[in-house]
């Protein structure tokens, strides 16, 4: 999955990359809501057009993204087929499966469209927003909610993303070390998993301990410098367009 373009930040200098992360997240929610509430086929046109424009503006690798859609194609297909077979309605003339209804196919297509749109919206947002910005935005949105330690939550999210590649590296190293000692010859898959899981867990916990020490030695504190967000007119304009699209869908 390392080469998949989906949900990976791609550094560029565009309006969407520079956009205030708080408004960007709000736009993502509005567009996802628009896609979810769309009931007529022409309702999809406005969010679809917006996604297409955003993809061009963000200079994301459109062809690579479309190729990577194959990872989601199976899920979308399952959604379509399930709807087609389970929703009662008029049978499709000359179609070999009688249990497939016209209404089922239409509903299936509608759900597939919604899912595709939501995936594309999320891809654009993650592709144009760095993890640091995400962390700061989450912290900002959680701040007014009582009893939630927003800095701690944001730090935990940050550390998770820092640790993931390190854990993967450890896993690869351990796997290779075991392969060099012919672990494949072991027939019992549970034992093989055991050989990886426990050492990996123990190493990860030891590393976590070290990270805590390292953070402590650099004066980790929850009273820390807060990120400054800058919002310009274009950001507000984009948000207004997203609100307009939602109204177009629900009215």
């Amino acid at each position, binding site marked *: 999955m390392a080469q998949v373009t989906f949900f990976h930040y791609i*550094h560029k200098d565009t309006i969407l990359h520079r956009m205030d992360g708080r408004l960007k997240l709000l736009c993502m929610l509005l567009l996802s809501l628009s896609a979810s509430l769309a009931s007529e086929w022409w309702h999809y046109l406005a969010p679809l057009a917006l996604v297409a424009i955003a993809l061009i503006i963000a200079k994301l690798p459109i062809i690579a993204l479309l190729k990577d859609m194959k990872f989601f194609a199976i899920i979308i297909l399952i959604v379509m087929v399930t709807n087609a077979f389970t929703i009662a309605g008029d049978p499709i003339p000359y179609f070999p499966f009688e249990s497939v209804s016209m209404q089922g196919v239409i509903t299936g297509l509608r759900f597939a469209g919604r899912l595709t749109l939501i995936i594309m919206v999320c891809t654009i947002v993650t592709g144009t927003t*760095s*993890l*640091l910005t995400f962390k700061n935005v989450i912290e900002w949105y959680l701040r007014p909610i009582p009893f939630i330690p927003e800095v701690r939550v944001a730090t935990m999210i*940050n*550390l998770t*993303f*820092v640790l993931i*590649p*390190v854990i993967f590296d450890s896993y690869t190293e351990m796997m290779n070390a075991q392969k060099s000692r012919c672990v494949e010859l072991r027939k019992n898959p549970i034992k093989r998993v055991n050989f990886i899981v426990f050492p990996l867990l123990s190493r990860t916990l030891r*590393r976590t301990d*070290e*990270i805590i*020490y*390292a*953070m*402590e*030695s*650099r*004066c*980790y*504190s929850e*009273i*820390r*410098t*807060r*990120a*400054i967000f800058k919002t310009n007119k274009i950001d507000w304009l984009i948000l207004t367009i997203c609100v307009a699209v939602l109204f177009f869908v629900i009215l």
Partner: protein
Amino acid sequence: MPLLEAKDLTHVFPNGTIAIRDISLQVHAGEFVIIAGANGSGKTVFIRHLNGLLVPTKGKVLIDGEPIAKNIAKARRKIGLIFQDSDSQIVGQTVAEDVAFGPENLNLPVPEVDRIVRETLETVGLSDLSSQSPHTLSGGQKRKLAVAGVLAMKPNIIMFDEPFTGLDYPGVVQVLQQLVQLHKAGHTIILVTHELEKVLAHADRLLIIHKGELVEDGKPEDVISRTENYGVRIPLKNGEEVGEVTWLR
């Protein structure tokens, strides 16, 4: 008055193992101190007491004459620690973000944090890599980033725990150059290593910890002949002087 002082430091682990026993030590401003010893001798446990990461079972640590327990945050600002495994020290998703971690903990204003990050990255020569993921850096660059993370806190004393471990020759030279530069810039250096052949020429003092006890403390030329009694190889070749023992040419 010594800048840093340890008095009768003893640390006993919960299972009863004595990690260090009655270690007393004074470090003065501007000194370059090497702490050597075999694996498991208690070097790392000892230096982790010096910036308050571990609490001693007995004894105390003083910085500028004040016990560090009174103000741990101040002690950690003044005494930076660079860990043996740089990966464990790096908490940012980009090089710049990692350097900013310390100043942000101090709640400094954003423009000041940005300025410190810019200046520190310039000092260690990582400015061009500021937006890169630390995960993609080489071993030597990661060690530089760990140093940058500590330098951003403006410490007086910088402690290095086995900084040469796992580095190739250019990596060792890079770290060594940085150590010497930091010392020349006025920082007090405490270096934990058993690889004396790489660095001894630059040290003012050589300490040996053996089985948790401080067994030697003196000028390198006075101590060096006895290091092998404590599991540390004598780095001198035939006719070589202590002042020549370095990988910097």
